[in-house]
């Protein structure tokens, strides 16, 4: 098992290297440059050139890449052009929001998605199942920003139960009541995702239910609850867990739209804003880190298979 984990880590190195090359070259293919964006509409070409030079943007691309990747290997992702501080600090500033959003959305998704999925599978083709599958399909079909805007109008503007936007740091203030700022964004994100988890749980449970060992379990006269939970659910967990793993990564950085609607200082908005500002080091840093997290989660998901299904052994 440990040898397997080590092997997986080793194989991440070339992947991350490849990822860094792809990210770097993609980013520098984008027209425009940060000096021009920063100085604005009325800057003279000389002024822009001066700033470009002071940023090192006038050097050949391969030199810039070598400098960047050299820094990354030493744990230094460079300076953010826009924020004038280390990229890692900039990302750390945003990590709180993104992690909390991801964790709380995941909790919502699991708490809502998995039980309803099980119920739908057990009561397969009943009225209840049809209701759930209809509702979940509906939520999976709404563009996120439309859902978010409507939730904001209803719960924040009309009813005034929750704040509209923003998220004051909990770490800095120690005030856990700030979590109320994340309620609407997490619902917005959890709605479509739990819908997908409901459907996945339902379909993989139905799938497993057809397997021979489940038939044997029924034949042995085990109780319905026991068969459902111990045999069917446990075995269908594999696909559910792997889907949850990927959902988690997507929630870490792929929540730009929700972050924009609710004006949250998260990683997703950081990437998109950095893209518009051509803040190369920041975009590169975020995407590389997210890719690394993705690979880690991938590994964790694979390892969880061994726990869920004793037949799977890694060596």
């Amino acid at each position, binding site marked *: 098992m440990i040898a397997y984990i080590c092997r997986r880590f080793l194989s991440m190195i070339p992947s991350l290297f490849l990822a860094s090359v792809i990210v770097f070259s993609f980013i520098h293919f984008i*027209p425009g440059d940060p000096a*021009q964006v920063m*100085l*604005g509409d*009325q800057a003279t070409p000389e002024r822009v050139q001066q*700033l470009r030079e002071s940023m090192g943007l006038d050097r050949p691309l391969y030199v810039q890449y070598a400098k960047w990747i050299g820094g990354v290997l030493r744990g230094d992702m460079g300076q953010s052009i826009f924020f004038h501080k280390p990229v890692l600090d900039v990302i750390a500033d945003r990590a709180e*929001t993104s992690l909390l959003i991801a964790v709380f959305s995941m909790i919502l998704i699991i708490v809502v998605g998995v039980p309803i999925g099980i119920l739908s599978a057990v009561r397969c083709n009943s009225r209840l199942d049809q209701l759930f599958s209809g509702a979940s399909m509906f939520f999976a079909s709404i563009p996120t920003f439309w859902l978010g805007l409507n939730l904001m109008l209803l719960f924040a503007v009309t009813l005034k139960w929750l704040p509209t936007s923003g998220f004051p740091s909990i770490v800095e203030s120690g005030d856990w009541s700030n979590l109320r700022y994340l309620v609407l964004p997490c619902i917005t994100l959890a709605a479509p995702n739990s819908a997908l988890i409901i459907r996945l749980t339902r379909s993989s449970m139905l799938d497993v239910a057809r397997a021979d060992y489940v038939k044997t379990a029924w034949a042995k006269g085990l109780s319905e609850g026991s068969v459902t939970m111990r045999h069917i659910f446990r075995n269908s967990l594999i696909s559910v867990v792997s889907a949850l793993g990927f959902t988690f990564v997507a929630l870490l950085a792929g929540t730009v739209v929700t972050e924009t609607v609710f004006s949250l200082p998260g990683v997703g908005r950081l990437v998109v804003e950095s893209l518009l*500002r051509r803040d190369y080091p920041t975009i590169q840093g975020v995407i590389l880190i997210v890719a690394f997290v993705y690979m880690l989660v991938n590994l964790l998901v694979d390892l969880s298979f061994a726990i869920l299904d004793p037949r799977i052994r890694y060596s």
Partner: protein
Amino acid sequence: MKGRKLLVFLAACVCLVLVGGAATAAPAKGGVLRMAVIDEPPTLDQHVVTSDLTTMIAQHIFEGLYTFNAKYAPVPLLVKSDEVKDGGKVVVLHLRDGVKFHNGKVMDAEDVLASLNRWGKFGARGPVLFGNLEKVEATGKLDITMTFKAPFAPWKNLLAFLNGGPVIYPKDVVATAEKKPIEQYIGTGPYKFAERNPGRYIKLVRFDDYASRTEPADGYSGKREALFDEIRFIPVPDVGTRVNGVKAGDYDYAEQILGDLFDSLKADDAVVTTVNQGATQGLMFFNSKTGPLKENFKLRRALQAAMNMEAVLRTAVGPKELWKASGSFMPDSTTWYSKSGVDAFSNGSAEKAKALAKEAGYAGEKITLMASTSYKFHHDSTMVLVKQLKDAGFNIDYQIYDWATLISKRADPAQWDIFFTHHGFVPDPVLYTFMSESYPGWWTTETKRALAKEFSATMDDAARKLVWDKIQALAYEEVPVIKTGDHFTYDIYSPKLDGLSASSLIWPKFWGVGFKATK
């Protein structure tokens, strides 16, 4: 009879104002102002960037030698008095004594000299002044002497305009920054910089040692009093979220609201609207270096004739109160307002355009028009304009980009014929972008050069205005640029705020503003 009624009415009004004035207590001291702004500024360094957002925030921290009163006339701020000698060639500035920086040091001529020099060398608008300057030196502890090559009239306006302008930093801050944006935000303003929390807010706190002027407040000039303990500028990029946030009480003030929402927000008791009088104008620059529009002034006039700006403004801006279809490059709130040449503005005649195009020898060559989707009104304006141009028979290749791509593409004359941008308020036409020869579009005809030279050398205000009239007339003849009209952005705020005027001059300011005193 009618006259008496009016008199009674007027008297009643006066009473109301007096009573009302007495009843309203002055805004209270204290509290945190939460202001929703459109984005995060790249830096607060006023020397190098011309972003309005930067200036709006930075004006609370940094101050310049002069500033503007409510009539857009330059008046002293950090300067106590000035002397103009030698027919305008020499200007001596006497600084105010005892003005403290936020780090506790007292400002002197060395700080001012260092700041002016950096601005002249690396600043956005510095070269406009420094190109005409022979030397600037500190001639005393609190004296600065500027010697011009020839009398240069706009100097005071240039020193008063903060946007990309010469704010005063301590000299050691200047020394460490040079061409890079400054990173220590130390100024002399009523609020001092406290913290930048990326993605969350920029925090300013009251500067208790602020050396305020004593004259009554007038525009940006006179007494400045910081009432809030703290101001937070919070980036809220989505306009709908800014509106909802103020309505729900999550923000106290939100800038740059959508024109089409103006009427409904004005009628809403939960918010107050305030219109910004410093007009913004949409501009279409024509490529003078290469392509079908190069030196083909008749073809440019043909394009100009096809446009109907009322339709553009009604679509892109909204309610009539927020725009003026005015052809004068300088808005009518300034003394520079001019009608010369404006007969050619907004003719909206496809026939006239077709006739002119025919005369110009236009045979359906492709004309590339670039606009950015990063600004909604750029896109909305160009959508209407492109339609009008196509209806008049022009072959327009309409290309849209994000702002960063557009400003890099427009640097290359081969890539475009027309691009759309906007121009903020400037106090002196010398700061108008088309006056600069390096601004994309590159309007450099001989006639223009001669007039521009005459303009900056003329000292007398009335005479300068006459030259400006000629320049504007030429701009309608050679058409380096087409203006869509003036439009006024507006902001909304919570009725809990007190001390804000019904409209702001260029940027909203928060000295003299506080929460309503509770009884």
